[in-house]
């Protein structure tokens, strides 16, 4: 068996893991599975594309590739801007939609349904704005480097793995070492108690939306850079994201990342062993297995 599947799996897994960290955070604090989370990945990628395009238009120098990578300074700059914009998008959707359900104390499932409607609208809006034709951050081709052990990777891929690692470690430290991180965990365990312990629950909710959206944006840009940008980019990742969040245990940041890598590796293995057409079924199989054997996931609290 070709060991290259490990590299492919790690890359897919890093993207899934980053997205799943966002899902697990929003799920544990907002208490519903957000079917529109995938669209935050797609919007993140397209927003970065649009900003990068505008930057390239202003100054052609920004698109000149930074060796050894395939993209110019326009991409990292636009990524930062896109992260902010995706966060604002999530806050706007919350303000327009989910906040009123929270105020009314609507059933969880109503919010799930609203997220389902929002995902549909957001995705089709992307299709309307950018059409369903795939887009790319860069046209430059990269040669994969030999890493030893039969593994190959392009500089872009290695960089993205590094970015994912840094992002997850940062979020983990944020959750365990800072006031806002403790506040998020407190709200996730018991919002009423959190509020009488002096925590501004609404602020925590806004932070979580922003953080989840920011991670989604990073994952979307990664996926866009390493594969391609399509309006269905996030929707097609939604099942792996949910599977990873549940496998990792809802609320667990390291769990979501680890589960993302597991799912990515399983997908890559399945592609080699069974065929690429069955890739999407892998996360379903894993999801079913988790629900059967250990519904609270690897690191989840018993409910």
């Amino acid at each position: 068996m070709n060991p290259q599947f490990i590299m492919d799996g790690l890359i897919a897994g890093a993207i899934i893991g980053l997205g799943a960290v966002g899902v697990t955070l929003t799920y544990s604090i907002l208490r519903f599975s957000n079917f529109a989370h995938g669209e935050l990945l797609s919007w993140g990628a397209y927003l970065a594309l649009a900003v990068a395009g505008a930057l390239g238009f202003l100054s052609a120098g920004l698109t000149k590739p930074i060796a050894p990578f395939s993209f110019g300074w326009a991409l990292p700059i636009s990524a930062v801007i896109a992260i902010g914009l995706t966060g604002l998008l999530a806050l706007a959707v919350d303000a327009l939609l989910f906040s009123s359900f929270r105020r009314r104390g609507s059933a969880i499932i109503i919010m799930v349904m609203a997220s389902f409607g929002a995902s549909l609208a957001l995705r089709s809006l992307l299709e309307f704005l950018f059409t369903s034709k795939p887009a790319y951050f860069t046209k430059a081709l990269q040669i994969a480097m030999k890493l030893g052990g039969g593994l190959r990777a392009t500089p872009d891929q290695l960089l993205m793995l590094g970015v994912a690692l840094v992002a997850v470690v940062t979020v983990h430290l944020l959750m365990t070492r800072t006031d806002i991180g403790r506040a998020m965990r407190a709200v996730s365990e018991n919002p009423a108690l959190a509020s009488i312990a002096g925590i501004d629950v609404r602020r925590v909710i806004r932070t979580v939306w922003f953080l989840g959206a920011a991670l989604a944006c990073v994952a979307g840009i990664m996926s866009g850079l390493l594969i391609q940008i399509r309006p269905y980019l996030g929707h097609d990742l939604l099942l792996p994201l949910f599977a990873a969040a549940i496998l990792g245990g809802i609320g667990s940041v390291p769990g979501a990342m680890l589960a993302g890598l597991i799912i990515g590796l399983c997908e890559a293995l399945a592609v080699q062993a069974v065929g690429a057409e069955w890739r999407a079924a892998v996360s379903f199989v894993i999801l079913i297995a988790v629900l059967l054997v250990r519904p609270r996931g690897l690191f989840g609290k018993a409910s």
Partner: protein
Amino acid sequence: MTAPILSTHGLVAGYEPDLPIVRGIDFSVSSGELVVLLGPNGAGKSTFVKAIAGLVPIHAGTMMLNGRDITHVSPHRKVAEGLAFVPQTENVFATMTILENLQIAVAHLPKAKRGAAIEALFSRFPDLAARPSRLAGALSGGQRQMLAVARALALDPPVIILDEPSAGLSPKIVSEVFDMLKAINAGGVTVLLVEQNVKAALAIASRAVILAEGRIAHEGLPEELASDPLVGKIYLGTAHGHQGAPA
């Protein structure tokens, strides 16, 4: 009598607007008092204090803290204004450590003062200081109650409200908890206490208020209530003539 530190006027509250549980309560606590709220099950005691803390929607009436209207202030702002609340159950963050529970409690203080505040709590509750990295969920009932009270006292609140702090504790621990409350009150903190444990509560209270069906039914000094057989029989279930079947 000094000016009330905490008061409610015509307070109506409940989870459903059409079915209020608290149905018009005029109530006040003066600085330094230890007031105990008694009453039969379903009288609305718990809902009343939760409404004060901001956990139950208020449909009519007002409430004041230290001369300021706090009726529609959100719960976390009330904490900052000096109103501490200890719920009956789930009153600590079980998935977090003792230290983290307290770190959350002192988060309103400037960073430089937090360490000292936590140290002060640890010296006050030495049981908690022994292993600050223990998960709160692993603590015994009594220790949890200590942690919950410690959390509530972290900001030196002028008023602390406790919802049945003795529920589910062994008699020995109960008396420890009541001793602690007495000490807290002696330290100048105004205490409002909801209790089922009538005897122990009346023993430490400076005043008692009896709720029934969402309204104040009776008010008085603990000694008066304790010796009033009618009140005891109707509202407290503490039949003084032990032989008679309760009404």
